[in-house]
């Protein structure tokens, strides 16, 4: 056993409550899944959860993006009293109602999307950011409704809307209602188009299924974090269909850039700067 591991074990026993949002693994050390380097969690957090060694972008939740984008990490959360209910009585291996409760307990979140408004480079904007830890970032009624309200808020205040999708797709436990959220989120964006309100998308790891095939691919500008998995079908489904292994890098941000589906790839610490530049191009 490496001395790292021993320290890690000991640290786990003695120290630190787990971070509030489960954006990173617990403990003081973690291993970068890409370069296998041991990294201190504190260093990692200070680097916006990007590996300082190899630039691997760890999956993070809405909280990190809000802190990263809004000036001084100051923002007001909107529509946070919306919650999912199991209105179809959907039961698979466990009831949907139980899944909702477990997700809330595990993540400390209320849903797979959070909407917040605040200043970015001293200009007010509204951001809708998703959390993958909440039932796979799946889109049900609440995600659709909060996204629609975020769009209406942008429309009403004439401020840009920024979406940060992160999702496995539609939420099966709401069946046709979740499918219809694709139409709902896409339809509301026509109003922003007509009013000339900017809509920018920051594509993060992973974004697949119904979310990609609706509001995630309808941005005026598509910004992607490096190495993010972005696609319609998941890689496993494609491999089963074509009965071949997919080449490395397939459906990653760089692949999407090559195929004209995103405008540019921006490392996490430059996201805010990029948004501010886009705002200037829109405004001046």
């Amino acid at each position, binding site marked *: 056993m490496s001395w790292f591991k021993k320290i890690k074990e000991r640290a786990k026993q003695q120290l630190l409550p787990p971070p509030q949002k489960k954006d990173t693994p617990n403990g003081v050390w973690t291993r970068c899944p890409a370069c296998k380097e041991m990294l201190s969690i504190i260093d990692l957090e200070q680097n916006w959860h990007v590996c300082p060694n190899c630039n691997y972008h760890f999956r993070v939740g809405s909280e990190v993006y809000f802190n990263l984008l809004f000036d001084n990490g100051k923002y007001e959360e909107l529509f946070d009293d919306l919650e999912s*209910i199991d*209105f179809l009585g959907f039961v698979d*291996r466990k009831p949907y109602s139980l899944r909702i409760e477990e997700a809330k307990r595990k993540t400390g979140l209320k849903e797979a999307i959070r909407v917040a408004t605040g200043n970015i480079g001293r200009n007010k904007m509204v951001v809708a950011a998703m959390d993958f830890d909440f039932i796979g970032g799946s889109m049900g*009624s*609440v995600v659709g*409704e909060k996204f629609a309200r975020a769009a209406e808020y942008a429309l009403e205040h004439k401020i840009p809307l920024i979406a940060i999708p992160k999702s496995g797709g539609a939420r099966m436990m709401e069946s046709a209602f979740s499918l*219809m959220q694709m139409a709902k989120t896409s339809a509301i964006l026509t109003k922003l188009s007509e009013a000339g309100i900017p809509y920018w998308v920051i594509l993060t790891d992973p974004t697949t299924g119904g979310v990609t*095939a609706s*509001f995630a691919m309808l941005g005026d500008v598509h910004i992607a974090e490096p190495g993010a998995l972005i696609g319609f079908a998941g890689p496993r489904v494609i491999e089963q269909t074509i009965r071949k292994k997919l080449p490395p890098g397939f459906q990653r941000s760089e692949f999407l850039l090559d195929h004209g589906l995103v405008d540019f790839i921006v490392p996490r610490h430059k996201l805010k700067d990029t948004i501010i530049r886009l705002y200037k191009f829109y405004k001046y």
Partner: protein
Amino acid sequence: MPTYLEFERPIEELETQLQHMLQQKERGENIPDEEIEKIKKEIIKKRKEIYENLTPWERVLLSRHPDRPQALYYLNTMCDDWLELHGDRMGHDDPAIVGGFGLLGKKTVMFIGQQKGTNTKERQYRNFGMANPEGYRKALRLMKLAEKYGKPVVTLVDTPGAFPGMEAEERGQAEAIARNLFEMARLRVPILVIIIGEGASGGALGIGVGDRILMMENTWFSVISPESCSSILWRDWDHKKEAAEALKLTPQYLYNYKIIDDIIKEPVGGAHVDPEKAAKILRREILKHLKELEEIPIDKLLAKRLEKYRRIGVYKEGDKVISSF
């Protein structure tokens, strides 16, 4: 030879009996007409009995019945003239999606539909009705043409899903579907969506946003197929029947949930038993709904369309439950 599904076995037995009797009669044997009439009546009774009590899974099977009429059959049968148009004007033509002008009496309609194929060769050619991005882009091109001419759009949805292939991803499957959802929400002509077979997920929705959604009786419409739902949520392929129940994917459920606007009756035993009659019913329903939609001024129609999708969902806000049905 017609194809019988598992739950249709009692009908098959009676039909075989009937054929047998008719042959005997032809050979000059003494078969009383009452006997033949009796068995014919019994077949009708049995069909009704079976078809009135279908489980959701059985309805899924019926929607995939090998003899079930598909988009091209309906177009060729119910249109007084029909002119197919091809290509997305960006390098491709997708045979999984067909479209063009159709004439119903003196009414020109832009029809767009998925075509799964009726035999092995056609099924391969049509990729089993699983469209690639170019299919959705062709559909959009045709919708824009309809908008230019001020003609209503009618879509005939019948797909097991958008194709999950490598090239589909390279050419932007998700973007192509998303673009259609966006454009269909604001297309300045009436759009009537009809599920004529399978309505699976984003692949169906890609031509499935409109002023009204109708479903034929033996069809389904869902966020995912029962098989895939079983494999993801139950982690095996054996729970498709439970998944079909849980997904509430049949026309009656979706009508009660106000997701769809109407159910189109099929001939007893399903559209495949009497395709011509099914086509006649479909034509009548299309004309009826288009007439109603065209009476609404276009700006009002568009506002109603946006409002329809804006409302859909069920959730809790504070202590209040907000529901669209």
